[in-house]
């Protein structure tokens, strides 16, 4: 009986955690200055930028980003060294408690691959950012 109750309460807790899909309202993770670069119509890729501020007392990680207009979104960093530009893939992105991580041109960026043909006509879209602790956050993004 106790075991069943424990399982039930665990399920309820999980359900409440899953149901809480808008932690942005709690200001746990604040995403600002989000934009995606407008590219020539023939381009099938673009880049995205934003600032992530972790207002919680727990270190967090950005695990995944999805877009309705890109087949795939990857996290990358442009590394400038001795006059050379090279990209490195970021498997996960750490956002320490209380810190702000900035994605900007010539630095950390999202790489949007396999853009849909309608991308070049859009002025705005959205991205879903999935954090280890803050959960999924949907943000509106200007394309400019």
């Amino acid at each position, binding site marked *: 009986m106790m075991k069943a109750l424990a399982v039930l309460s665990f399920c309820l807790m999980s359900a409440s955690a899953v149901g809480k899909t808008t932690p942005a309202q709690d200001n746990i993770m604040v995403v600002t200055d989000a934009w995606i670069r407008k590219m020539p119509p023939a381009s099938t890729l673009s880049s995205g930028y934003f600032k992530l501020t972790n207002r919680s007392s727990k270190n967090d990680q950005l695990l995944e980003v999805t877009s309705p207009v890109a087949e795939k979104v990857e996290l990358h960093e442009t590394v400038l060294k001795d006059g050379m530009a090279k990209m490195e*893939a970021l498997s996960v992105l750490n956002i320490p408690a209380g810190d702000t991580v900035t994605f900007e041109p*010539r630095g950390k960026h999202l790489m949007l691959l396999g853009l849909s043909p309608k991308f070049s006509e859009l002025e705005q879209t959205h991205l879903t950012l999935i954090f280890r602790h803050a959960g999924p956050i949907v943000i509106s993004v200007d394309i400019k």
Partner: protein
Amino acid sequence: MKLATFVIMSLVSLLLSIGAGYLIFRTQVTQSKTISYPITPGIPVVAEAFEYTNPEASLAGGKWTVLSFGYTHCPDICPATMAQLAAILNQSSSTDLQVVFVTIAPEVDSLGALAAYREHFHPSIIGARGEAAALAKLASSLATTFDYIEGDNDNTFHSSYYYLINPKGEWVGYYKPEEHSSQAIAGDLSQLISTQETF
């Protein structure tokens, strides 16, 4: 003192003041610091067998040139470069300046693709394309290198600099674009072009 003497002395002192003022001004202009990294003496740029999106364009000289390397399906740095080059062109009043984007991927970037790409950022940016051997010679004359691997952005690399080439076709300096705003680079270029006897 006779009136004539007074007039002559006044004129002489006026001329001396103008002369001194001009010398001070000239010294300030020629001694003003550029934000580019100068290359002295200039090194001849080797740009044989290149084709351009603008038929009148050339890297052999005639105009001041700002040159950068990249490829049209590069996600972050090349669009950042193109946007900054476009802003530099918008802020520059010089007609003696051309901006050239050289593709490091001639096997995939046709002249048409380059034209469409630059058109999106600024129609005055010139796209340049040379086959592998010509491209390697150009890069080598600018003391740089590159590697393009199709479908592998993480192992592709190229220069991030803006190379400054004088009207004689000599490489005379470069900018590190991440260090300056487009406005600062445009202002610096205008000054370099107007005082080009310093090169």
